[in-house]
């Protein structure tokens, strides 16, 4: 078996493992919902008995104290975490083998970009979880990443090989590498902002989201807390994106004879930069922080996805390196 084929097999294995992780995390979200229901029932009982009569709202704030602090370990979430680690390691090895098979940095076409971007997103999630409990993100991150990898395998896959002269430059490692990392970080930030919007809508009584099926949203952190987490990631992502654009301009100056030429990819990178810049401004503009700012993250991430898929496949520009004919 060729090394390239082995890499592909490992990618499939990673996708399967991460799908399992997603299921485990989803079960965990469901379980937490049950627990919360119990808490609510207990509170009701307490109120009914006329004992202490705590505010009904205090239960939703995560302060239903004894039941939670002595809660049993969340076994499904634990399984989710360990399968996530396994899947991410498999993906990492697959990327390494891909690099060995092609004899170059393994991020020069869409398929490889998808793999490495997914790997970065998983790594951010896993490493962050070492510092604080962000397991609530697990189902969404593993779900998105599994989707990306499978789409990559089915639609973007090309055999491992060398690259054309314009790509033979150390900037391939830096410019594309940072762009991928930024994309991975934007992915997690998008999940956080989307959850913030959902939770916020449920809290303010959206008819659709107040249905029982969305009870798991109550167990998410507060919108304020989600917002601040999302911001921290977006700030890092934005700085990396700025660097991607500057690095790309330096490279384009050498490879194409101009640092900026409004190539479709450049246009969209510019749009992404402006949208995230608008997000950073919105956060500090009165009347625009919170929910409205979160929409910028959603729009910005949609642009990131389009910049990767649409611009590569639909528009004919200088960045057409998908290798798909």
């Amino acid at each position: 078996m060729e090394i390239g084929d082995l890499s592909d097999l490992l990618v499939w294995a990673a996708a399967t493992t991460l799908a399992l992780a997603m299921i485990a995390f989803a079960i965990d979200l469901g379980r937490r919902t049950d627990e919360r229901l119990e808490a609510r029932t207990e509170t009701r009982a307490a109120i009914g008995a006329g004992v202490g009569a705590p505010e009904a709202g205090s239960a939703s704030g995560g302060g239903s104290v004894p039941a939670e602090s002595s809660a049993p370990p969340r076994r499904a979430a634990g399984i989710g975490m360990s399968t996530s680690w396994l899947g991410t390691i498999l993906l990492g090895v697959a990327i390494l083998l891909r690099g060995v098979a092609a004899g170059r940095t393994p991020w020069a076409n869409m398929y490889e970009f998808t793999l490495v971007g997914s790997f970065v997103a998983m790594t951010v999630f896993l490493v962050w979880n070492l510092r604080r409990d962000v397991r609530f993100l697990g189902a969404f991150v593993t779900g998105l990443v599994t989707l990306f990898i499978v789409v990559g395998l089915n639609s973007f896959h090309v055999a491992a090989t060398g690259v054309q002269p314009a790509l033979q430059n150390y900037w391939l490692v830096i410019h594309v590498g940072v762009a991928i990392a930024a994309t991975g970080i934007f992915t997690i930030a998008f999940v956080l902002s989307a959850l913030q919007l959902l939770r916020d809508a449920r809290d303010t009584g959206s008819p659709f989201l107040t249905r029982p099926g969305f009870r798991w949203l109550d167990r998410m952190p507060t919108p304020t807390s989600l917002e601040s987490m999302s911001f921290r990631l977006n700030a890092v992502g934005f700085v990396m994106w700025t660097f991607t654009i500057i690095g790309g301009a330096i490279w384009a100056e050498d490879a194409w004879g101009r640092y900026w030429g409004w190539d479709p990819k450049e246009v969209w990178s510019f749009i992404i930069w402006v949208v995230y810049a608008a997000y950073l401004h919105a956060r500090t503009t009165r009347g625009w922080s919170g929910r409205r700012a979160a929409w910028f993250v959603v729009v910005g991430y949609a642009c990131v996805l389009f910049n990767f898929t649409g611009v590569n496949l639909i528009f004919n520009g200088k960045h057409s390196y998908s290798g798909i004919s």
Partner: protein
Amino acid sequence: MSERTYRPEGIADDFTTGAPTSTADAVPGAAGQPPSAPRAPQLGWRGMLRWTWRQLTSMRVALMLLMLLAVAALPGSILPQRDQDPSAVVEYLGEHPTAGEWLDRFGFFDVYTSVWFSAIYLLLLVSLVGCIVPRTIAHARALRARPPRTPVRFERFPVHVTGTTAESPDEVAAAAAAHLRGRWRRMPTFRVEAGAEDARPARGKVPARPATRTVAAERGYLRETGNLLFHLALVGLVISVAVGQLLHYRGQAIITEDRGFANAVVDYDTFESGAWFSPESLVPFAMTLDAFESEFATDTVAFAQSRDFTAEVTVHEPDGSSRAETIKVNHPLDVDGAKIYLQGNGYAPEISVTDAEGATAFDGRVPFLPEDQVYTSRGVVKVPDVSPGLDQIGLIGYFLPTAVLNDDGTAESVFPLPEDPLLVLEVYRGDLGLDEGVPQNVYRLDTANLTASVDDDGERVTLLLEPGDTVELPDGLGTVTLGEDVPRFVALDLRHDPSLAWVLSFALLALLGLTGSLFLPRRRVWVRSWTSDGVTQVEVAGLARGDDAGLEPEVDRLLTALPGLERARPTRTSEED
């Protein structure tokens, strides 16, 4: 609004009090100013101007302009643009005559130089300058100011800790100040001011307190500095790009092996320059192409994909010296401040034509432009009428570096390197317009008024030539010869833009400023210490601007630095999930 802290209209990035802000809408007036309602009518024209200026430099308008900019940039990626691909624009106009004309009228084929796109970014720049300049002045003042006074009550701050120690208040204050200043005298972590307060009676909720020692400290002035640096660098970036546009020049030349060109406007095939360019600024060096090498993949996965292009050249400087250089893709050659790029390459076969009278009518290298990955290259030979009374001859054809003949008589190229070259030509005769003195595109032959040579069956005659072959032209027009060697040509792009260093510097400054403004924490810390009942009481409060997960650890570090402190009750007012 105090004069010292200039705030653009609508900004809300104050030091957070830690109270959970509503996620939907921030409370109006949270930044200490009333919401700006439109109040134009009674202002008069001067007030109107002021109001317009206030609006333009407000955060809300800046935000709108940013969103507009993103939307305005969009069409340039969807519609063909003249700067990038003029022929695609012509094609589009041909396919959509009505819509195309209107789109053209509104500049949709030159989006990034159009009036509306320029208007948006210029307004944005004006808004930015109007916002940043007063902020810079205010910040310059703030840089020399002392840290904010120690507040009377610490309870309202997001981090608030009390404790007791056996040491005296003086020692506590000294230790706190020393810790907060940090190790380096010149670059203190915090700007610190130690102070003292007199004893005070009880007032409102605040109980009576004896005389105290206080320490007020603030860090993170560089955060605002970074923010301002970022915005100012953006202005610098746009200005240097504009200046570069005015001063730059760019020329393209096709040269074949062993031939050269001189850096003069007339020697380029195409040449364009900015409004402030003067031809005297061209350094008159010359260059010859000694050899050109190319490599292509031979593996099955990426068969015939390019792998390497190298042009070996000799540069002749005006002072008479010359030196050998190499130009590769990604590695332009720097000559006298201008960069020379290898932008294309192909074959320029040597073709000679002898007319019916036996006179040499054409002898030269003809660049054939590659049209695909295997260098199926198209070219045109325009043969003048050297002997009187004869037609002009036009040859159109393909050069195939590695040719394979198919069963139906057609030929195709299968590999880009010249392993088995073949030249396929069709022959036209008539008036090519070569005598009219009108410049023509050397790569196109307008065959509308020409007669094509056909054989007895009415089929077009195609001539097949291998290197060294001489073939009779049909209809007794003469002979055509393909030279033994097939020289390569390279398309070189020479560009000079004196603003490059400035553009890069401003971009990097912007990156630096951005990083600082996003990641440098801005924090205020206060310490108050007094003696009550023979025990030294210590009170510490911390406040940060924006979200700051590091505020609590900062205060914790300060507490461990205070001698013999025992924490009373760690109070966290900040909301955590």
